């Protein structure tokens, strides 16, 4: 089984890399990009039966810094 984890900066936390992407898209002539946020995507191959709770613990203890980041988990 796989876990797909998205880590993103919390709302309200300045994301300078997202800002740079937003400006670059504007400079390239793409209209209508109101904001960009950059995050991380982490994919884990897991032994069958690994619980979502275990993945959640991995996120809280290492994969995301919950002071500044949110995370979401998809199991498949």
């Amino acid at each position, binding site marked *: 089984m796989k876990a797909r984890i998205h880590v993103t900066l919390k709302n309200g*936390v300045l994301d300078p890399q997202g800002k740079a992407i937003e400006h670059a898209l504007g400079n390239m002539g793409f209209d209508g990009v109101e904001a960009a946020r950059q995050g991380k995507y982490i994919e884990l191959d897991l032994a069958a039966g690994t619980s979502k709770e275990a993945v959640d613990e991995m996120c809280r203890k290492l994969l995301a810094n919950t002071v500044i980041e949110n995370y979401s988990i998809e199991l498949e």
Partner: protein
Amino acid sequence: MKSAVIVFPGSNCDRDMAVALEKVTGKKPEMVWHQSADFEKVDFIALPGGFSYGDYLRCGAMSARSTVMKEVIKRAEAGVPVLGVCNGFQVLTETGLLPGALMRNASLHFVCRDVELEVANDASLFTNGYTAGSNITIPVAHHDGNYYADKETLDALEGEGQVAFRYAEDINGAQRRIAGVLNKKGNVLGMMPHPERMIEPALGGSDGRVLFESVMNRLG
């Protein structure tokens, strides 16, 4: 004063820290590898600057979970003085020994130059040789030195005198220009500037030396 420098793979300032500690204290520090489960009893522990684990995942994230840090956290909680410089500061926030987090510089530029700092607290173990309100010069070299904490945490840090140093001018977007913070007990200091690179005139100045001397003054 017996000291230890923790050595993480990828760090490139561990020897700078060791040289500074030897020059100021007169004793070679013990270099402790990140996989060590235990090390000799010491009076002072330094977490050096410099891209441990290649800054993978987040700066300091891997080091904070390394074997040796379990022992460092235990000793810090027992009151042993711990200084984290640059990447060492990032490690300290990642372990939770210090509040907040260090984010990419707001300018997106790597900032590498001497900067002026305001001494915000001159009563702590690490800063008693300075005068609060005075300005000192210490170099910085970082890409991720933008200190972030929520408003309540920042108010609490300021209220409790836990801000040790501020940048005289905004260099990286850090909240309230914070360059260095202390834990509540005052035995853990994390700072982005590199005091170990400013310990004698040959290096451009001695303002960093005062920090190590402050610790020695208290510990003997």
